[in-house]
Protein backbone atom coordinates (compact mmCIF):
# COMPACT_ATOMS: atom_id res chain seq x y z
CA UNK A 1 0.00 0.00 0.00
CA UNK A 2 1.18 3.50 -0.87
CA UNK A 3 3.00 5.08 2.10
CA UNK A 4 1.37 8.49 1.79
CA UNK A 5 -2.10 6.96 1.56
CA UNK A 6 -1.47 4.90 4.69
CA UNK A 7 -0.36 8.01 6.60
CA UNK A 8 -3.51 9.87 5.53
CA UNK A 9 -5.65 6.93 6.54
CA UNK A 10 -4.08 6.64 10.02
CA UNK A 11 -4.43 10.38 10.66
CA UNK A 12 -7.99 10.32 9.30
CA UNK A 13 -9.11 7.46 11.52
CA UNK A 14 -7.47 8.96 14.65
CA UNK A 15 -8.74 12.50 14.20
CA UNK A 16 -12.15 11.37 12.88
CA UNK A 17 -12.58 9.01 15.84
CA UNK A 18 -11.56 11.62 18.41
CA UNK A 19 -13.80 14.24 16.75
CA UNK A 20 -16.77 11.84 16.86
CA UNK A 21 -16.13 11.03 20.52
CA UNK A 22 -15.88 14.69 21.56
CA UNK A 23 -18.79 15.48 19.23
CA UNK A 24 -21.04 13.20 21.28
CA UNK A 25 -20.47 15.56 24.22
CA UNK A 26 -20.92 18.67 22.10
CA UNK A 27 -24.16 17.44 20.56
CA UNK A 28 -25.70 16.81 23.96
CA UNK A 29 -24.89 20.37 24.93
CA UNK A 30 -26.25 21.78 21.67
CA UNK A 31 -22.76 23.04 20.95
CA UNK A 32 -21.94 20.95 17.89
CA UNK A 33 -22.44 23.91 15.58
CA UNK A 34 -20.00 26.02 17.57
CA UNK A 35 -17.26 23.99 15.91
CA UNK A 36 -18.39 25.46 12.57
CA UNK A 37 -17.74 29.10 13.34
CA UNK A 38 -14.55 28.14 15.12
CA UNK A 39 -13.49 26.23 12.01
CA UNK A 40 -14.23 29.27 9.88
CA UNK A 41 -12.24 31.43 12.23
CA UNK A 42 -9.21 29.22 11.70
CA UNK A 43 -9.20 30.20 8.03
CA UNK A 44 -6.82 33.16 8.44
CA UNK A 45 -4.46 30.85 10.37
CA UNK A 46 -4.69 28.19 7.66
CA UNK A 47 -4.09 30.86 5.04
CA UNK A 48 -0.91 31.98 6.84
CA UNK A 49 0.22 28.33 7.14
CA UNK A 50 -0.33 27.72 3.43
CA UNK A 51 1.41 30.93 2.40
CA UNK A 52 4.43 30.37 4.63
CA UNK A 53 4.53 26.57 4.36
CA UNK A 54 3.95 25.35 7.92
CA UNK A 55 1.43 22.85 9.32
CA UNK A 56 -2.16 24.12 9.01
CA UNK A 57 -3.06 22.83 12.48
CA UNK A 58 -0.34 25.05 14.00
CA UNK A 59 -1.74 27.98 12.04
CA UNK A 60 -5.31 27.15 13.04
CA UNK A 61 -4.81 26.55 16.76
CA UNK A 62 -4.10 30.15 17.95
CA UNK A 63 -7.07 31.37 15.92
CA UNK A 64 -9.43 28.84 17.55
CA UNK A 65 -8.24 29.92 20.97
CA UNK A 66 -8.73 33.54 19.92
CA UNK A 67 -12.24 32.65 18.66
CA UNK A 68 -13.22 30.92 21.90
CA UNK A 69 -12.01 33.90 23.97
CA UNK A 70 -13.81 36.30 21.62
CA UNK A 71 -17.13 34.42 21.79
CA UNK A 72 -16.81 34.13 25.58
CA UNK A 73 -16.06 37.87 25.94
CA UNK A 74 -18.88 38.88 23.58
CA UNK A 75 -21.31 36.68 25.46
CA UNK A 76 -20.32 38.22 28.79
CA UNK A 77 -20.58 41.77 27.46
CA UNK A 78 -23.66 41.54 25.24
CA UNK A 79 -25.77 38.59 26.50
CA UNK A 80 -26.62 37.94 22.84
CA UNK A 81 -27.41 34.31 21.97
CA UNK A 82 -24.40 32.12 21.24
CA UNK A 83 -25.55 31.54 17.63
CA UNK A 84 -25.56 35.28 16.89
CA UNK A 85 -22.10 35.74 18.35
CA UNK A 86 -20.63 32.78 16.56
CA UNK A 87 -22.12 34.09 13.30
CA UNK A 88 -20.34 37.41 13.82
CA UNK A 89 -17.08 35.64 14.59
CA UNK A 90 -17.14 33.16 11.74
CA UNK A 91 -18.18 35.65 9.06
CA UNK A 92 -15.28 37.86 10.14
CA UNK A 93 -12.89 34.88 9.90
CA UNK A 94 -13.94 34.12 6.32
CA UNK A 95 -13.83 37.79 5.33
CA UNK A 96 -10.31 38.32 6.68
CA UNK A 97 -9.04 35.18 4.95
CA UNK A 98 -10.19 36.21 1.50
CA UNK A 99 -8.53 39.59 1.87
CA UNK A 100 -5.11 38.02 1.59
CA UNK A 101 -5.28 34.29 0.74
CA UNK A 102 -4.40 33.63 -2.93
CA UNK A 103 -7.48 32.09 -4.53
CA UNK A 104 -5.53 29.06 -5.85
CA UNK A 105 -4.81 28.06 -2.24
CA UNK A 106 -8.38 28.59 -1.11
CA UNK A 107 -9.48 24.99 -1.73
CA UNK A 108 -7.08 23.49 0.84
CA UNK A 109 -8.16 26.12 3.39
CA UNK A 110 -11.85 25.61 2.79
CA UNK A 111 -12.16 21.84 2.42
CA UNK A 112 -8.83 20.55 3.78
CA UNK A 113 -6.17 18.37 2.25
CA UNK A 114 -5.13 15.32 4.18
CA UNK A 115 -3.54 13.64 1.15
CA UNK A 116 -0.24 15.45 1.61
CA UNK A 117 0.18 15.01 5.35
CA UNK A 118 3.86 14.55 6.29
CA UNK A 119 5.27 11.87 8.62
CA UNK A 120 6.01 14.19 11.57
CA UNK A 121 2.67 15.95 11.18
CA UNK A 122 0.99 12.54 11.12
CA UNK A 123 2.72 11.42 14.33
CA UNK A 124 1.80 14.67 16.09
CA UNK A 125 -1.82 14.43 14.94
CA UNK A 126 -2.19 10.80 16.03
CA UNK A 127 -0.59 11.44 19.43
CA UNK A 128 -2.74 14.54 19.99
CA UNK A 129 -5.89 12.68 18.94
CA UNK A 130 -5.06 9.84 21.35
CA UNK A 131 -4.32 12.24 24.23
CA UNK A 132 -7.53 14.06 23.46
CA UNK A 133 -9.43 10.77 23.63
CA UNK A 134 -7.95 10.08 27.09
CA UNK A 135 -8.79 13.57 28.36
CA UNK A 136 -12.33 13.43 27.01
CA UNK A 137 -12.84 9.96 28.51
CA UNK A 138 -11.78 11.35 31.89
CA UNK A 139 -14.13 14.36 31.79
CA UNK A 140 -16.99 12.61 29.98
CA UNK A 141 -19.31 11.82 32.93
CA UNK A 142 -18.70 15.25 34.43
CA UNK A 143 -19.52 17.09 31.24
CA UNK A 144 -22.62 14.93 30.68
CA UNK A 145 -23.84 15.89 34.15
CA UNK A 146 -23.09 19.56 33.39
CA UNK A 147 -24.93 19.18 30.08
CA UNK A 148 -27.95 17.84 31.93
CA UNK A 149 -27.91 20.63 34.51
CA UNK A 150 -25.12 22.87 35.74
CA UNK A 151 -26.94 23.29 39.04
CA UNK A 152 -27.12 19.56 39.54
CA UNK A 153 -23.42 19.30 38.73
CA UNK A 154 -22.63 22.13 41.16
CA UNK A 155 -24.70 20.46 43.85
CA UNK A 156 -22.45 17.42 43.33
CA UNK A 157 -19.49 19.75 44.01
CA UNK A 158 -18.13 19.66 40.47
CA UNK A 159 -15.73 22.45 39.58
CA UNK A 160 -17.69 23.75 36.58
CA UNK A 161 -15.09 26.32 35.50
CA UNK A 162 -12.29 23.77 35.49
CA UNK A 163 -14.22 21.23 33.43
CA UNK A 164 -15.50 23.90 31.03
CA UNK A 165 -11.94 25.04 30.44
CA UNK A 166 -10.73 21.49 29.71
CA UNK A 167 -13.77 20.95 27.49
CA UNK A 168 -13.21 24.15 25.48
CA UNK A 169 -9.49 23.37 25.20
CA UNK A 170 -10.42 19.95 23.80
CA UNK A 171 -12.74 21.59 21.26
CA UNK A 172 -9.93 23.95 20.22
CA UNK A 173 -7.56 21.02 19.65
CA UNK A 174 -10.08 18.98 17.67
CA UNK A 175 -10.95 21.97 15.48
CA UNK A 176 -7.25 22.62 14.81
CA UNK A 177 -6.74 18.95 13.90
CA UNK A 178 -10.00 18.74 11.98
CA UNK A 179 -9.31 21.67 9.64
CA UNK A 180 -6.36 19.75 8.23
CA UNK A 181 -8.73 16.95 7.20
CA UNK A 182 -11.90 18.71 6.16
CA UNK A 183 -10.97 22.41 6.04
CA UNK A 184 -12.44 25.40 7.79
CA UNK A 185 -15.85 25.06 6.16
CA UNK A 186 -16.70 21.51 7.21
CA UNK A 187 -15.31 21.12 10.74
CA UNK A 188 -18.72 21.25 12.40
CA UNK A 189 -19.81 18.25 10.36
CA UNK A 190 -16.81 16.27 11.57
CA UNK A 191 -18.04 16.51 15.16
CA UNK A 192 -21.81 16.73 14.62
CA UNK A 193 -22.66 14.04 12.06
CA UNK A 194 -21.04 10.95 13.65
CA UNK A 195 -22.55 11.90 17.02
CA UNK A 196 -25.99 12.43 15.45
CA UNK A 197 -25.83 9.03 13.74
CA UNK A 198 -24.70 7.38 16.99
CA UNK A 199 -27.54 8.99 18.88
CA UNK A 200 -30.02 7.45 16.46
CA UNK A 201 -28.56 4.00 17.04
CA UNK A 202 -27.88 3.95 20.77
CA UNK A 203 -29.89 3.12 23.86
CA UNK A 204 -27.29 4.04 26.43
CA UNK A 205 -24.36 6.35 26.98
CA UNK A 206 -21.59 3.86 26.21
CA UNK A 207 -23.17 2.90 22.86
CA UNK A 208 -23.54 6.60 22.05
CA UNK A 209 -19.99 7.68 22.90
CA UNK A 210 -18.18 4.67 21.44
CA UNK A 211 -20.59 4.60 18.48
CA UNK A 212 -19.81 8.24 17.64
CA UNK A 213 -16.09 7.46 17.79
CA UNK A 214 -16.40 4.40 15.54
CA UNK A 215 -18.64 6.20 13.04
CA UNK A 216 -16.14 9.12 12.98
CA UNK A 217 -13.29 6.69 12.24
CA UNK A 218 -15.24 4.75 9.61
CA UNK A 219 -16.41 7.95 7.86
CA UNK A 220 -12.82 9.18 7.62
CA UNK A 221 -11.55 5.89 6.22
CA UNK A 222 -14.40 5.69 3.71
CA UNK A 223 -13.79 9.29 2.63
CA UNK A 224 -10.05 8.79 2.22
CA UNK A 225 -10.56 5.48 0.35
CA UNK A 226 -13.05 7.15 -2.02
CA UNK A 227 -10.57 9.98 -2.57
CA UNK A 228 -7.96 7.37 -3.55
CA UNK A 229 -10.35 5.85 -6.08
CA UNK A 230 -12.03 8.97 -7.48
CA UNK A 231 -9.48 11.75 -6.94
CA UNK A 232 -12.15 14.10 -5.50
CA UNK A 233 -11.00 16.08 -2.41
CA UNK A 234 -10.94 13.89 0.72
CA UNK A 235 -12.50 16.48 3.09
CA UNK A 236 -15.94 16.66 1.46
CA UNK A 237 -15.87 12.87 0.84
CA UNK A 238 -15.30 12.25 4.59
CA UNK A 239 -18.30 14.41 5.43
CA UNK A 240 -20.44 12.74 2.74
CA UNK A 241 -19.49 9.31 4.07
CA UNK A 242 -20.66 10.32 7.55
CA UNK A 243 -23.86 11.76 6.03
CA UNK A 244 -24.47 8.40 4.35
CA UNK A 245 -24.03 6.60 7.69
CA UNK A 246 -26.33 9.14 9.32
CA UNK A 247 -28.99 8.48 6.65
CA UNK A 248 -28.74 4.74 7.26
CA UNK A 249 -28.97 5.33 11.03
CA UNK A 250 -32.35 7.01 10.56
CA UNK A 251 -33.75 3.71 9.23
CA UNK A 252 -32.52 1.81 12.29
CA UNK A 253 -33.36 4.56 14.80
CA UNK A 254 -33.86 3.26 18.37
Amino acid sequence: MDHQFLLSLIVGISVGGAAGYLGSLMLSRRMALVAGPLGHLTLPGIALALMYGFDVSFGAFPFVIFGIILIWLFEMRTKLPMEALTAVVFASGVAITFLFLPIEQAEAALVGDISRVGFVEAIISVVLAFLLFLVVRKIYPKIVLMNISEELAQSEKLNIKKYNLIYLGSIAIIVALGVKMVGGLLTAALVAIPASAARNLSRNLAQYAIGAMIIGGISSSLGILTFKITGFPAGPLIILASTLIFSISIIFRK
Partner: protein
Amino acid sequence: MENEFILKVRNLNVRLDHQSIIENLSFEVKKGDALTILGPNGAGKSVLLKTLLGLIPYKGEIEWAKAIKIGYVPQRLPFIKDIPLNIRDFFNLKGSPEEETQATLNSVGFRDDFSRKKIGDLSSGQFQRVLIAWGLVGNPQVLLFDEPTTGVDISAEETIYNLLAKLKEERDLTILLVTHDLSVVYKFSTDVICLNRQPICYGPPQEVLTPESLQRLYGGEVKYYQHKH
Protein backbone atom coordinates in the same frame (compact mmCIF):
# COMPACT_ATOMS: atom_id res chain seq x y z
CA MET B 1 -30.93 13.26 69.08
CA GLU B 2 -34.32 14.95 68.61
CA ASN B 3 -34.23 18.76 68.35
CA GLU B 4 -30.78 18.47 66.79
CA PHE B 5 -30.29 21.42 64.46
CA ILE B 6 -29.66 20.64 60.83
CA LEU B 7 -29.75 24.18 59.44
CA LYS B 8 -29.78 27.71 60.77
CA VAL B 9 -30.39 30.66 58.46
CA ARG B 10 -30.11 34.23 59.71
CA ASN B 11 -30.84 37.49 57.85
CA LEU B 12 -30.43 35.91 54.44
CA ASN B 13 -30.40 38.38 51.57
CA VAL B 14 -29.97 37.40 47.93
CA ARG B 15 -29.60 39.80 45.01
CA LEU B 16 -29.41 38.69 41.39
CA ASP B 17 -28.82 41.07 38.45
CA HIS B 18 -29.15 44.08 40.81
CA GLN B 19 -32.57 42.87 41.96
CA SER B 20 -33.45 41.80 45.45
CA ILE B 21 -34.77 38.22 45.37
CA ILE B 22 -34.81 37.28 49.06
CA GLU B 23 -34.85 39.77 51.92
CA ASN B 24 -34.08 39.25 55.59
CA LEU B 25 -35.06 35.61 55.84
CA SER B 26 -34.33 33.69 59.04
CA PHE B 27 -35.37 30.16 59.96
CA GLU B 28 -34.16 26.95 61.52
CA VAL B 29 -34.56 23.31 60.59
CA LYS B 30 -34.33 20.47 63.10
CA LYS B 31 -33.61 16.83 62.44
CA GLY B 32 -36.67 15.05 61.07
CA ASP B 33 -38.48 18.26 60.08
CA ALA B 34 -40.34 18.60 56.82
CA LEU B 35 -40.12 22.28 55.95
CA THR B 36 -42.18 23.53 53.04
CA ILE B 37 -41.31 26.73 51.23
CA LEU B 38 -44.55 28.12 49.88
CA GLY B 39 -45.09 31.07 47.59
CA PRO B 40 -46.25 32.26 44.17
CA ASN B 41 -44.15 32.01 41.02
CA GLY B 42 -41.11 34.28 41.11
CA ALA B 43 -41.20 34.52 44.91
CA GLY B 44 -37.61 33.33 45.32
CA LYS B 45 -38.40 29.74 46.42
CA SER B 46 -36.07 27.95 44.00
CA VAL B 47 -33.43 30.64 44.53
CA LEU B 48 -33.62 29.90 48.26
CA LEU B 49 -32.91 26.20 47.70
CA LYS B 50 -29.99 26.98 45.39
CA THR B 51 -28.64 29.48 47.90
CA LEU B 52 -28.83 26.86 50.64
CA LEU B 53 -26.86 24.54 48.38
CA GLY B 54 -24.19 27.23 47.97
CA LEU B 55 -24.89 27.76 44.27
CA ILE B 56 -25.79 31.45 44.56
CA PRO B 57 -23.93 34.24 46.40
CA TYR B 58 -25.71 35.70 49.41
CA LYS B 59 -25.41 37.95 52.42
CA GLY B 60 -26.29 36.72 55.89
CA GLU B 61 -25.64 33.42 57.57
CA ILE B 62 -26.30 29.85 56.45
CA GLU B 63 -25.09 27.24 58.89
CA TRP B 64 -25.50 23.54 58.09
CA ALA B 65 -24.79 20.87 60.74
CA LYS B 66 -21.25 19.54 60.47
CA ALA B 67 -20.55 16.73 57.95
CA ILE B 68 -24.14 16.83 56.75
CA LYS B 69 -24.94 15.01 53.50
CA ILE B 70 -27.42 16.82 51.29
CA GLY B 71 -29.36 15.39 48.34
CA TYR B 72 -30.91 17.73 45.79
CA VAL B 73 -33.79 17.02 43.43
CA PRO B 74 -34.16 19.85 40.90
CA GLN B 75 -37.42 21.07 39.41
CA ARG B 76 -36.77 20.08 35.82
CA LEU B 77 -33.99 18.66 33.71
CA PRO B 78 -35.03 19.84 30.25
CA PHE B 79 -31.86 18.72 28.46
CA ILE B 80 -31.67 15.19 29.82
CA LYS B 81 -33.76 13.76 26.99
CA ASP B 82 -31.24 15.09 24.43
CA ILE B 83 -28.81 12.44 25.63
CA PRO B 84 -29.29 8.70 25.04
CA LEU B 85 -29.04 7.85 28.70
CA ASN B 86 -30.49 4.86 30.50
CA ILE B 87 -31.26 5.00 34.20
CA ARG B 88 -28.09 3.13 35.16
CA ASP B 89 -25.99 5.66 33.16
CA PHE B 90 -27.70 8.49 35.01
CA PHE B 91 -26.78 6.98 38.37
CA ASN B 92 -23.24 6.25 37.19
CA LEU B 93 -22.78 10.01 36.65
CA LYS B 94 -23.07 10.33 40.41
CA GLY B 95 -20.63 7.47 40.95
CA SER B 96 -23.34 5.26 42.39
CA PRO B 97 -22.24 1.61 42.69
CA GLU B 98 -24.43 -0.94 40.89
CA GLU B 99 -25.90 -2.39 44.11
CA GLU B 100 -26.78 1.03 45.51
CA THR B 101 -28.43 2.05 42.23
CA GLN B 102 -30.53 -1.11 42.32
CA ALA B 103 -31.42 -0.75 46.03
CA THR B 104 -32.34 2.92 45.67
CA LEU B 105 -34.49 2.25 42.63
CA ASN B 106 -36.21 -0.57 44.53
CA SER B 107 -36.89 1.83 47.41
CA VAL B 108 -38.89 4.13 45.11
CA GLY B 109 -40.83 1.17 43.75
CA PHE B 110 -39.00 0.05 40.60
CA ARG B 111 -38.07 -3.53 39.75
CA ASP B 112 -34.47 -4.65 39.12
CA ASP B 113 -34.67 -4.65 35.30
CA PHE B 114 -35.94 -1.06 35.27
CA SER B 115 -32.45 0.45 35.32
CA ARG B 116 -31.93 -0.49 31.66
CA LYS B 117 -34.81 1.75 30.57
CA LYS B 118 -33.97 4.82 28.56
CA ILE B 119 -34.65 8.08 30.41
CA GLY B 120 -36.43 9.43 27.33
CA ASP B 121 -38.96 6.58 27.49
CA LEU B 122 -40.12 7.31 31.06
CA SER B 123 -43.43 8.95 31.94
CA SER B 124 -43.16 12.21 33.88
CA GLY B 125 -44.21 10.45 37.10
CA GLN B 126 -41.63 7.69 36.63
CA PHE B 127 -38.95 10.26 35.82
CA GLN B 128 -39.75 12.18 38.99
CA ARG B 129 -39.39 8.98 41.05
CA VAL B 130 -36.06 8.30 39.34
CA LEU B 131 -34.94 11.82 40.29
CA ILE B 132 -35.95 11.21 43.90
CA ALA B 133 -33.95 7.96 43.88
CA TRP B 134 -30.98 9.84 42.39
CA GLY B 135 -31.22 12.36 45.23
CA LEU B 136 -31.10 9.46 47.72
CA VAL B 137 -27.79 8.06 46.43
CA GLY B 138 -25.07 8.37 49.06
CA ASN B 139 -27.64 8.22 51.89
CA PRO B 140 -28.12 11.95 52.51
CA GLN B 141 -29.58 13.08 55.83
CA VAL B 142 -31.30 16.04 54.16
CA LEU B 143 -33.20 16.17 50.89
CA LEU B 144 -33.94 19.40 49.06
CA PHE B 145 -36.83 19.18 46.58
CA ASP B 146 -37.72 21.85 44.09
CA GLU B 147 -41.38 21.41 43.11
CA PRO B 148 -41.18 17.62 42.81
CA THR B 149 -44.52 17.32 41.02
CA THR B 150 -44.08 19.89 38.24
CA GLY B 151 -45.59 18.47 35.07
CA VAL B 152 -46.86 15.35 36.79
CA ASP B 153 -50.54 14.33 36.61
CA ILE B 154 -52.66 14.33 39.77
CA SER B 155 -52.60 10.57 40.45
CA ALA B 156 -48.81 10.46 40.04
CA GLU B 157 -48.54 13.55 42.27
CA GLU B 158 -50.32 11.68 45.06
CA THR B 159 -47.90 8.73 44.60
CA ILE B 160 -44.90 11.04 44.82
CA TYR B 161 -45.95 12.70 48.06
CA ASN B 162 -46.85 9.33 49.60
CA LEU B 163 -43.44 8.10 48.51
CA LEU B 164 -41.71 11.10 50.07
CA ALA B 165 -43.56 10.54 53.33
CA LYS B 166 -42.58 6.84 53.29
CA LEU B 167 -38.91 7.59 52.54
CA LYS B 168 -38.80 10.25 55.21
CA GLU B 169 -40.01 7.71 57.74
CA GLU B 170 -37.79 4.84 56.57
CA ARG B 171 -34.59 6.83 56.20
CA ASP B 172 -35.08 9.33 59.02
CA LEU B 173 -34.78 12.16 56.52
CA THR B 174 -35.08 15.88 56.99
CA ILE B 175 -36.84 17.40 53.99
CA LEU B 176 -36.97 20.92 52.56
CA LEU B 177 -39.56 21.15 49.86
CA VAL B 178 -40.48 23.98 47.52
CA THR B 179 -44.08 24.04 46.35
CA HIS B 180 -46.92 26.34 45.46
CA ASP B 181 -49.47 23.66 46.34
CA LEU B 182 -51.25 24.40 49.62
CA SER B 183 -52.64 20.89 50.08
CA VAL B 184 -49.08 19.52 50.17
CA VAL B 185 -48.19 21.90 52.97
CA TYR B 186 -50.97 20.65 55.24
CA LYS B 187 -50.46 16.97 54.44
CA PHE B 188 -46.74 16.85 54.52
CA SER B 189 -44.95 19.52 56.47
CA THR B 190 -44.08 20.18 60.07
CA ASP B 191 -43.24 23.84 59.27
CA VAL B 192 -43.84 26.24 56.44
CA ILE B 193 -42.12 29.39 55.23
CA CYS B 194 -44.37 31.68 53.22
CA LEU B 195 -42.05 33.54 50.91
CA ASN B 196 -42.70 36.34 48.50
CA ARG B 197 -39.22 37.85 48.37
CA GLN B 198 -39.76 38.76 52.02
CA PRO B 199 -40.83 36.19 54.59
CA ILE B 200 -44.57 36.49 55.15
CA CYS B 201 -45.04 33.73 57.72
CA TYR B 202 -43.04 30.95 59.35
CA GLY B 203 -44.10 28.14 61.65
CA PRO B 204 -46.39 25.08 61.80
CA PRO B 205 -48.88 25.38 58.91
CA GLN B 206 -51.99 24.98 61.11
CA GLU B 207 -50.86 28.01 63.12
CA VAL B 208 -49.40 30.39 60.56
CA LEU B 209 -51.41 29.78 57.39
CA THR B 210 -54.24 32.19 58.09
CA PRO B 211 -56.45 33.83 55.43
CA GLU B 212 -54.54 37.07 56.13
CA SER B 213 -51.09 35.57 55.64
CA LEU B 214 -52.22 33.79 52.47
CA GLN B 215 -53.70 37.00 51.14
CA ARG B 216 -50.40 38.78 51.79
CA LEU B 217 -48.54 35.92 50.16
CA TYR B 218 -50.58 35.67 46.99
CA GLY B 219 -51.69 39.27 46.85
CA GLY B 220 -55.43 38.54 46.44
CA GLU B 221 -58.28 36.68 48.02
CA VAL B 222 -57.28 33.05 48.58
CA LYS B 223 -59.84 30.46 49.56
CA TYR B 224 -58.62 27.19 50.90
CA TYR B 225 -60.40 24.79 53.16
CA GLN B 226 -58.35 22.31 55.04
CA HIS B 227 -60.28 19.05 55.13
CA LYS B 228 -60.13 17.32 58.46
CA HIS B 229 -61.07 13.65 58.14
